[in-house]
């Protein structure tokens, strides 16, 4: 049986040394660097998409980086993560190597899902990263179950469950909040409220568009947070995760954010104005945090240039490793439908 891809980069191509450990909890510079990595990684994805090397659906997170970077900083290795299809940031911030994501998007055997998943289905059991679900709201029940198992096994862990505002209209969302609250399970629900589900603005989808208020009705602490400010997200997530970990039951954070780019590479963006996008771009989370660090003397032009250089190196290495990857042999098409040692 062929093993799963190891964490070390596959042979040959020079990989950066341990670039992807989770960010330190309240290290503002680390948070900014993490967002920078995500931003540049996704810009590279867009280029590779334009070049025809990445295909399928590609959902970029540009503008929303503070959410994944801030929330993930509140988690430890014992915690679990359930993400959506817009998940490159979650995977990177959880510490998955950039090359394993890139190889996946190029459809290579070295990819984290051996080329079976693509952009929307990234997984890493060694980091308790239960990925990548492209059915809107379908990850919420998984998160409830992971938290249930953790509690039944006596593990002191939080399951962080990311989803968009679009998920809030699904029955699965309501059922899952109800069940998690009823059973007081350790789930941290993280709503990435970027105001749009594809082209449907939240006010045209939800009778009660204040997601935190809806969640509060299920009997859990719920709070709306500035999702463009990575430190605000990290603070709120840190406090909420600590309570959840201590057995207080589930909590929800509604992270108010915005995606600067189209929903996916197919989206002509007819549903919103350029002025609206421009307005939100003035609150770019990288700039917000960068300015804060500069004001505090924690970042200057040299340090910023150095950070850019390191990130560029890491991404170039990821692309090189992925490009040198091996396509899964077609003879293996029918593998991984059942466990290979199964009956």
């Amino acid at each position, binding site marked *: 049986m062929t093993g*799963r*891809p190891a964490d070390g980069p596959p042979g040959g191509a020079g990989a950066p040394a341990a670039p992807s450990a989770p960010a330190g909890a309240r290290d503002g510079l680390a948070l900014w660097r993490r967002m920078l990595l995500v931003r540049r990684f996704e810009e590279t994805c867009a280029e590779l998409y334009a070049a025809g090397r990445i295909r399928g659906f590609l959902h970029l997170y540009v503008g929303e980086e503070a959410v994944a970077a801030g929330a993930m900083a509140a988690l430890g290795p014992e915690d*679990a993560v*359930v993400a959506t299809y817009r998940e490159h940031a979650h995977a990177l911030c959880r510490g998955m190597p950039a090359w394993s994501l890139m190889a996946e998007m190029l459809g290579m055997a070295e*990819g*984290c*899902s*051996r*080329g*079976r*998943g693509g952009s929307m*289905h990234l*997984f*890493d*059991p060694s980091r308790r990263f*239960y*990925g*990548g*679900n492209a*059915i809107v709201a*379908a990850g*919420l*029940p*998984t*998160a*409830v*179950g*992971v*938290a*249930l*198992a*953790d509690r*039944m*096994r006596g593990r002191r862990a939080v*399951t962080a469950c990311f989803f968009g505002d679009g998920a809030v209209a699904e*029955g*699965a969302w309501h*059922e*899952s909040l*109800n*069940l998690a609250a*009823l059973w007081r399970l350790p789930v941290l629900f993280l709503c990435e409220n970027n105001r749009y589900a594809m082209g449907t603005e939240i006010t045209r989808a939800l009778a009660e568009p204040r997601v935190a208020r809806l969640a509060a009705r299920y009997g859990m602490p719920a709070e709306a947070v500035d999702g463009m400010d990575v430190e605000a997200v990290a603070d709120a997530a840190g406090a909420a995760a600590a309570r959840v970990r201590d057995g207080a039951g589930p909590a929800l954070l509604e992270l108010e954010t915005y995606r600067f780019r189209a929903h996916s590479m197919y989206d002509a963006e007819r549903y919103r104005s350029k002025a609206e996008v421009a307005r939100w771009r003035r609150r770019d989370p990288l700039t917000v945090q960068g300015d804060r660090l500069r004001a505090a003397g924690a970042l200057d032009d040299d340090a910023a240039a150095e950070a850019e250089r390191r990130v560029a190196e890491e991404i170039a290495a990821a692309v090189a490793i992925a490009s040198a990857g091996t396509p899964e042999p077609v003879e293996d098409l029918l*593998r*991984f*439908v*059942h*466990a*290979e*040692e*199964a*009956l």
Partner: protein
Amino acid sequence: MSAAAPATYREAVREAIREALRRDDRVFLMGEDVGRYGGSYAVSAGLLEEFGEERVRDTPLSELTFVGAGIGAALAGMRPIVEVMTINFSLLALDQVVNTAAAMRHMSGGRLGVPLVIRMATGGGRQVAAQHSHSLEAWYAHVPGLRVLAPATIEDARGMLWPALADPDPVVIVEHAGLYNLRGELPPGPAPVDIASAAVRRPGRDVTLVAHGGTVAVAAEAAGRLAAEGVEAEVLDLRVLRPLDRPAILASARRTRRVVVVDEGWRTCGLSAEVAAHVAEEAFYELEAPVARVCGAEVPMPYAGHLERAAMPQADDVVAAVRGLVGGA
């Protein structure tokens, strides 16, 4: 060890769950009314008292989410048994079963599997009309990544659960509601059965009756009547609806050279279509007659008793189908 004891199919399933709960502390049962109420078909009666609320877990009416929570719990190291009252209601959870549980292994390139067991009742015969009677197991049998079991005997009802729990991938167990009162002998002690093969329930040389779940008894009754006419029918119980035991189907078809598929599900695009097509593809020149099918009528299940009977395969229909084949020989 005591000798085999008389038991019902219901008790056999309960015994299997009890054994699993005792043997492995990762196992728990979850579903609507499995605890205090004792299970909507009284399968889990008494288990709450024995194992407590942590492990015999009543859920709200949230099929999608408690089946999905079973997926999450399985991913995180538990071995959940999720009961969905009936296969009709399981459609509310179909997304989780098809899009997540069954797909996880493949779309993660083998890195994550979902060792989950989902049990549900299926089938008609109790005059509970269209929304409580359908035989939709073919829908699950359609899906790569699932194993689908249909215990038709007391021994299978008892023996299939443990190997299903040991399977690293999701298993759907479909129990025909008409079987819960079936009586038989339950051998003492856990006796796991193989969950890969079909079983010949009655050997015969003239015709093969392929059946599963509730139609095994129908086929057996037909075979008894045919024997009185001098026609020896073999009854093949599929037992495993996915992956189908194709060699067993072909071996029997080659032995008897005539095949009648008996399926309570609908004929169009159903399990009977798959079995018939497979036999035609692989054993066409060895057949004495075209494959015949006795299936559920293509209507939502009616309430009135006489209409319901007419909509479900009966032994008479099977006997008539066999006569058609044998007469034509």
